[in-house]
């Protein structure tokens, strides 16, 4: 599934060559669009020529449609592509400054490169200005670093902020863009001196058809994501390589080299009666894409162990989380039922059923959470515990992140 990890597969030289060619395409299209010409760019801000908006929003909408179409068909993993992190206020302040720079200088950095490439002297001076401005930023930023790093919202997306399914948001953005194009064409007729391009009916039709397709296909559900997961992960689950015994969980707890997190998918009542020390309660509903994506930036020695009453809910959660390629993810074999079975000597709960079933197999009268003896097995007792160790820290390939940030 895309995005491909070309750096790992092709090595640095071929990776950079492909990037260079992509950059070439970028430069060609910008120049063909006339963006090496500062008069053409500035005309946008006098309503004479809506070229800038047509190209920018045309590109934004085209890529957005292609990305979400590909995601809907399971060809591209939206959670794995670079979505610029949001630093809300610095972004707005920087944007305002850039707006001033745009109308004073007549370019933005990308278009100035194209102007420079076609020997425009105004482009040359603009680029020199950009380099100078960048230099001054580097010299001064550490004095306002707190402000520059403020209002950080992580990988915030429009759909999360609006609480919408992206497959609805995409058509809405397309319709807004079409409205902006139409409005622009009207303003061009009023303020412009030359006839400008109008969006053809086939063009409008294409955008609308693509939008409807995105809407109908929908954004992949957790089950659909699991279907597209690679064979290796599916094998791990089938071969039970990722199920660890209660004794191994105790060992992980005392292992200083491991950053352990235990997530418990039982009911609130069950959790309040008994849970393993330092475990956190989680529900399948709260396993949103937003939450899981945050775990992509976990430290490399983070090991996550999922548990439920038995194994059913933990397996469902494991599949959902694994579809986002979260490494070092394990399931507690047999869940809390089996934990209490193995550590029977640490409690006097009555056995009330088959521990293999996803129903509590132990009667726990006092709801004292992690204060039971069986919640925290003492380190000295580890010596007498035997288990087949399964946990192996995976080496995570580092992909080069965003360029401009």
């Amino acid at each position: 599934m895309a995005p491909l990890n070309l750096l790992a597969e092709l090595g640095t030289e071929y990776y950079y060559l492909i990037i260079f060619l992509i950059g070439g395409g970028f430069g060609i299209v910008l120049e063909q669009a006339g963006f090496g010409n500062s008069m053409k760019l500035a005309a946008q801000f006098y309503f004479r020529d809506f070229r800038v908006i047509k190209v920018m929003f045309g590109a934004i909408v085209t890529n957005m449609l292609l990305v979400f179409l590909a995601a809907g068909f399971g060809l591209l993993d939206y959670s794995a592509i670079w979505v610029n992190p949001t630093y809300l206020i610095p972004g707005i302040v920087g944007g305002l400054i850039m707006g001033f720079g745009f109308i004073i200088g007549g370019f933005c950095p990308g278009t100035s490169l194209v102007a420079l490439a076609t020997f425009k002297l105004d482009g040359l001076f603009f680029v020199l200005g950009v380099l100078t401005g960048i230099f001054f930023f580097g010299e001064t930023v550490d004095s306002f670093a707190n402000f520059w790093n403020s209002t950080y919202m992580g990988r915030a997306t429009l759909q999360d902020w609006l609480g919408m399914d992206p497959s609805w948001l995409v058509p809405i953005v397309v319709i807004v863009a079409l409205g902006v194009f139409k409005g622009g064409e009207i303003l061009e007729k009023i303020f412009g001196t030359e006839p400008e391009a109008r969006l053809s009916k086939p063009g409008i039709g294409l955008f609308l058809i693509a939008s409807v397709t995105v809407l109908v296909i929908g954004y992949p559900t957790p089950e659909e994501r699991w279907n597209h997961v690679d064979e290796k992960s599916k094998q791990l689950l089938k071969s039970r390589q990722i199920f660890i015994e209660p004794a191994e969980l105790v060992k992980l707890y005392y292992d200083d080299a491991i950053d352990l997190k235990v997530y418990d998918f039982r009911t609130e009542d069950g959790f309040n009666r008994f849970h393993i020390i330092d475990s956190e309660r989680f529900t399948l509903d709260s396993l949103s894409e937003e939450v899981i994506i945050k775990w992509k930036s976990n430290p490399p020695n983070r090991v996550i162990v999922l548990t439920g009453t038995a194994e059913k809910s933990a397996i469902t959660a494991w599949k959902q989380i694994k579809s986002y390629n979260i490494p070092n993810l394990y399931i507690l074999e047999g869940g809390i039922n089996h934990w209490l079975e193995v550590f029977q000597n640490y409690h006097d709960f009555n056995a009330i059923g088959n521990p293999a079933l996803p129903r509590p197999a132990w009667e726990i009268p006092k709801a004292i959470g992690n204060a039971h003896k069986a919640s925290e097995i003492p380190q000295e007792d580890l010596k007498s515990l035997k288990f087949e160790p399964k946990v192996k820290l995976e080496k995570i390939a580092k992909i080069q992140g965003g360029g401009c940030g």
Partner: protein
Amino acid sequence: MEQTFQREEIMKWISRLKGPNVAKKYMNPYLAGALLGLVLFVSFFLTGNGLGASGGLNRIVVAIEDVIVPEHINKTPYLMKLAGGDRNALDHWIVFIVGGAIVGGFFSGWFSGRVKVETVRGKGVSVKTRWFMAFAGGALMGYGARFARGCTSGQALSGGSVLSLGSWAFMFAVFAGAYALAWFLRGFWQPGR
């Protein structure tokens, strides 16, 4: 007879390589937008990243600084992240996007007859004034782009198309800033020179 034919063919190729004498018309902006979106998609599909420009220029500046004053880099936290110690500021994909864009822009201009040493400016504006304004605007742009952690290519085009919240806020701010100041600079951008 055959010699003349071959000579004609060679002359045709030379004139193709030289490029047209008269500048060709610009591409339909909607078509250009769709093609640019396609380039963006290819980039995201193959590499997981979009496009960008200011980041590459940033790294070029830091790389130059690293040659002239490496000790300064190692003392400035913001610069250290890019070029501190053994790090090569130019060893990043964004630099190659910038390189490719310049080369691509050149060839596109060359074969469209638009490569020309000139200063594009409004009616009644002197060359020197235009150069000064270009430099001043560029300086604001450079500063603002790093402030915003990206420019119209990296934030608006790339981030906006994958629905980053910050990118959309940024985009509105850019247009707001430009339109706000445009009225006061209307004399500078008069067409018809």
